[in-house]
């Protein structure tokens, strides 16, 4: 059955991958007593895609994953798998193996016995499950460790055992709940690459919950950003990065300056908006439909703002004071503040900072082009 699903996936992927919905969440609501964990959530998870669900703590992302796995029952709404409702399916019937944040490996079983657990439960014969468990152990580089006990493994090795335990049954979908959060940065990066490679090779659906931007953006085909039990934005990583749909998303991802403005004129190709710190010119399409007098939030990404000592470098400029700087490798993240107290984030190359000779406390002009202005809700 699994093999059939996989061929389907590859066929569909050639045609229109976005139309092949594997899991559809329809008007999901989850209440814990009076507290609402998930409110009226709708989401499609595409077959064979890597979907990352992210958001701050308490946004409902882990609850959503638990509802998918059947660990929590949903209060209202429905979950469809390939069009069929699985709302009333028991956990052990769902065939959605999960990589747990705590890994939840069985300490009383050896590495091999852990990997073959799912096969044993589905009644696969001993020889066959040994063969398949060994195969997966070797795919994930665990050959030498199969007879060890779990507490004799390192963090990275345990991670692989947890993955192998999920993948050995050849499921069409696996769930991952912050699986890399316990690893150190170096190992986490290595596992990210490996997870992405595995997902591509196997062509199965990955639903990956994380609070880490870098994990979500480096691996996912689709990123879903949740807040207070709702989906704030979903889309390809690049799309979300370039155009955050809401100010929450912009703030959550960080690195964007948000200026509240009023539309002043829409006469020409250029729309003029009035902010507390000046008038800005905007030319992107999304401004065309605006009415004069309406209030908007203008957003500019940190990498699209340049700095200068003198005025008149670009169509939009605002005078700021540098209040903070943070060095990240070859890049510098600067935090500026306008006269009205509005925060402006700028990302520069280190060498640009040197030529500009800027330090904390200095005054500087922030400049950006009219086409780099976007509207946010």
């Amino acid at each position, binding site marked *: 059955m699994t093999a059939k699903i996989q061929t389907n996936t590859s066929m569909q992927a050639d045609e229109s991958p976005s139309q092949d919905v594997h899991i559809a969440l329809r008007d999901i609501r989850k209440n814990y007593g009076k507290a609402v964990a998930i409110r009226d959530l709708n989401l499609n998870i595409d077959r064979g895609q890597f979907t990352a669900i992210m958001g701050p703590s308490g946004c409902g992302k882990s609850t959503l994953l638990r509802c998918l*796995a*059947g*660990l929590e029952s949903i209060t209202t709404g429905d979950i469809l798998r390939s069009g069929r409702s699985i709302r009333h399916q*028991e*956990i*052990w*019937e*769902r*065939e*959605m*193996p*999960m990589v*747990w944040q*705590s890994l*939840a490996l*069985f*300490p*009383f*079983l*050896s590495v091999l*016995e852990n990997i073959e*657990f*799912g096969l*044993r*439960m*589905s009644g696969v014969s001993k020889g066959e499950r040994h063969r398949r468990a060994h195969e997966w152990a070797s795919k994930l580089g665990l050959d030498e460790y199969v007879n060890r*006990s779990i*507490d004799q493994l390192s963090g990275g090795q345990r991670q692989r055992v947890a993955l192998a*335990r999920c993948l050995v*049954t050849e499921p069409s979908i696996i769930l991952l709940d912050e699986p890399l959060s316990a690893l150190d940065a170096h190992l986490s990066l290595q596992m990210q690459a490996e997870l992405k490679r595995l997902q591509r090779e196997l062509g199965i659906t990955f639903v990956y919950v994380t609070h880490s931007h870098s994990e979500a953006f480096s691996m996912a085909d689709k990123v879903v950003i949740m807040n207070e039990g709702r989906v704030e934005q979903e889309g390809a990583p690049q799309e979300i990065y370039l155009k955050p749909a809401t100010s929450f998303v912009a703030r959550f991802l960080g690195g964007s300056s948000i200026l509240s403005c009023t539309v002043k004129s829409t006469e020409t190709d250029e729309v003029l908006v009035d902010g507390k710190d000046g008038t800005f010119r905007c030319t992107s399409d999304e401004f065309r439909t605006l009415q004069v007098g309406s209030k908007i939030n203008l957003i500019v990404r940190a990498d699209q703002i340049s700095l200068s000592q003198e005025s008149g470098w670009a169509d939009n400029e605002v005078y700021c004071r540098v209040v903070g700087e943070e060095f990240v490798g070859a890049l510098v993240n600067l935090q500026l503040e306008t006269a009205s107290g509005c925060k402006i984030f700028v990302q520069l190359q280190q060498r640009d900072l040197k030529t500009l000779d800027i330090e904390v406390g200095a005054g500087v002009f922030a400049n950006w082009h009219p086409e780099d202005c976007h509207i946010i809700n």
Partner: protein
Amino acid sequence: MQKPALSARRLLYSSFWVSPLPFWLTLFFLGPLLLLVWLSFWDVRNFVLQPDFQLDNWVKILSANYFWQAYGRTFLGASCVAAIASLLALPCSLAIGFILSTRAKLTVLGLFVVPFFTSYLVRVYSWQIYLTDNGVISNLLAAIGLETGSLLSSKFAMQVGYVTLTLPLVVVIQSISMLSFDRTLINAAYNLGCGPVRVFFSVLLPGTRAGLILGALFAFIFSFGDFVSPTYMGGGKFPTLAILITDTVKSGQQWPRAAVIAIVMIGTLLIVALTSLKLAYRRK
């Protein structure tokens, strides 16, 4: 990796706290044990103990039929208690570990500690009210047409006594291992296609193995050496090793032969305990 050497002050500090242990162990365990071994080679002449070194006591006891009968009875009885108490305790510790609210858990666990407040002898005596000729239980059974007479002085009564002694402890030990069991493992097993019945046998039991084995071990140890239940519940009709020891001492001051029996008992318990511990903490 080499451990860093403790500084002199830390060494002094830790040895201060550690020192009572070897002291007490020597004084109250190792010393008496050696004395017991030595005593087993003594002689008794005209009801008087004489220091000696002869194997007569060992030969007499180990070749006596009545000794091996008592040994078999005691070993089997203690094994039965270990099994019965473990089975009786299991539903209870499962409830404490997985079903009850925190408050109810503490209350129930507290109730299982209460029996330790009263003497075991008192608890066994109170059973006599239930099990005697005109006791509550035989009257009840008579009401439905089962004439049992006295249930006392039977193997059944003896088991009741042993279970009275050991059950609370077994529940507490099992509960501790249930409470420390990671519930995520149960969800992980469900998630991998394991239904509730198989979760019990494939995850819960193996996962709490240490507690289950240790509970059974304690039940075995306590009932193996128990003197109260065979005497007051069994009416002395089924001589166990504990009864044999008192009889041996009473009849002709045979302390050396009693010492032989005691050493065999200690040896048995050591073997059982070490085997159980090995089973309980065996690594895969």
